[in-house]
């Protein structure tokens, strides 16, 4: 028995046949190691890219960060580069206004759609509806921008603004100060439609993480589907829903072309959803490469990009943390 064991160890095979030292095997292994290292390097690239972008932005915006206190840049309300005034607050506020309106419009509808798809729809309905929703995500932003320009801006101008003017004028965030149709509401509507497919897809996945056993346990005592969703499913998925919203928000924060086509692009502090605004991505896209002779202009735009990058990174990290916490939760 002992003898048999010892003949099976690699060393003894090596001694008796010499197979382990055959060069062909060694080169195969070398190939494998080389491939592994190559794959690793390419995996590392995106990580490095984020670092490189962040560092480059920081270096290029250093002149202005050095010249003005950070507080004045972030909370300054006046943007007059020719006078040397670089207040980012109107742009930061514009970004958040547009994103908030987009999220507020998108989330309730997305929740209903994903609940329907995950909890009610037949397999056949799902197999038709899901690809169509995914297709919506594939429409280029500029097309959404044109749609916003041709349909949403006039709709806001001719329908929503007069309605709000008549019924909601006393509420300041609904008051119509700039009746052009271009503004936060139009941008929010376009954004809502753009981020909906992503939010629905994520929410749907989250609903399907709830084990069917739980649904069946509830249905088995005579609960309706709606009672089961409200009492069992929704409490389970709440953190995931939050993560889906944050994910949608970080997509909305960075959306550029479709927003800048309908938002009005006026650097002011918005007070109403009918006001024009000027979000950070629109600022950068509209102005970078022009009027670069103004002192510190280049650095100012790049520090705007840096601010945007930081905000979006924070949002993404937040959503990742929420998703991780949710996945760590035990179901049964």
């Amino acid at each position: 028995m002992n003898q048999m064991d010892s003949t099976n160890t690699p060393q003894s095979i090596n001694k008796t046949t010499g197979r382990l030292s055959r060069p062909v095997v060694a080169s195969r292994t070398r190939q494998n190691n080389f491939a592994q290292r190559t794959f690793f390097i390419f995996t590392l690239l995106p990580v490095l890219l984020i670092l490189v972008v962040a560092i480059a932005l920081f270096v290029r915006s250093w002149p202005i960060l050095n010249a003005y206190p950070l507080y004045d840049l972030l909370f300054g309300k006046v943007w007059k580069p020719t006078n040397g005034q670089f207040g980012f607050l109107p742009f930061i506020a514009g970004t958040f206004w547009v994103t908030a309106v987009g999220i507020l419009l998108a989330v309730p509808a997305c929740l209903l759609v994903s609940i329907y798809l995950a909890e009610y729809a037949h397999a056949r309905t799902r197999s038709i509806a899901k690809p169509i929703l995914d297709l919506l995500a594939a429409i280029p932003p500029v097309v959404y921008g044109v749609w916003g320009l041709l349909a949403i801006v006039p709709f806001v101008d001719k329908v929503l603004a007069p309605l709000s003017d008549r019924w909601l004028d006393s509420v300041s965030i609904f008051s119509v100060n700039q009746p052009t149709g271009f503004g936060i509401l139009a941008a929010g509507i376009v954004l809502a439609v753009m981020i909906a497919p992503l939010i629905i897809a994520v929410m749907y996945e989250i609903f399907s993480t709830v084990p069917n056993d739980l649904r069946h346990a509830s249905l088995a005592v005579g609960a309706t589907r709606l009672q089961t969703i409200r009492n069992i499913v929704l409490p389970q998925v709440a953190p995931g829903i939050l993560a889906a919203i944050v994910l949608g928000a970080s997509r909305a924060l960075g959306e550029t072309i479709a927003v800048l086509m309908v938002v009005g692009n006026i650097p002011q502090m918005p007070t109403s959803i009918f006001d024009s605004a000027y979000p950070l991505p629109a600022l950068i896209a509209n102005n970078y490469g022009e009027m670069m002779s103004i002192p510190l202009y280049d650095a100012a735009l790049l520090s705007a990009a840096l601010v945007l990058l930081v905000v979006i990174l924070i949002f993404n990290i937040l959503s990742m943390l929420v998703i991780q916490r949710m996945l760590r939760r035990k179901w049964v």
Partner: protein
Amino acid sequence: MDAHIQVKNLNVYYGKQQALKNVNIEIPKNQITVIMGPSGCGKTTLLKSLNRFLELTDGTQITGEVLVDGQNIYAHEVDVTEVRKVVGLLAQRPSPLPMSIYDNVVYGMNIHRMKKDRKEYKAAVRHYLEIAGLWDEVYKRLHDPATSLSIGQQQRLCLARGLAVEPEIILGDEPTSALDPISSQNIESRLIELKKQYTTVIVTHTLRQAKRLADYVIYMYLGEVIEAGSAREVFNNPQHERTRAYLEGQI
């Protein structure tokens, strides 16, 4: 026989595959009926036709009738939630709801608004936990999460949750297959105690359990009911060749 459930010409298809072929059986009141047969023979399908759980699977087609107290539960005017209130199900794997022990028992009663105030709910929780033989083990920690219980305790909790909505019929889909021998025995003795008040239908794949529990036996093979009758007749003197083969361990 005093039949509580009558199944008439029941056919079930999953897509194109036929899972039940023209099933006609009667299930006696206040006895334990055991459905047995090799895996894939349609035992669970037959069981889940009795509380309309089959329709939770997409692409299921059902023809025929299931009468509970003479009422066809598949009739158009019947509310499925009422069916499931009358016909309770004990699942194969214990499935405590993600809430406290107390809330699990209260869950169904709350859904049907069966009690008036907290006092009544408290009394009911105690009552049904006692019936399920769990009260002594949990009365000090009713507000702990149900998942903190052992798996055998969880199954008794699920029994209490099911009984709390005052069903007339208890279905058990291999309700002890996930449990250790002692917990299984515990559940079995509960079911035997309860059979005076409830019509019980159990699916099992263990012949010994069938012999311990059954008053009435349904033997199925490939989607058909081969033989049905009192436990004594079927076990001692099976009429059909296939039943005999199964009882002798050949299938």
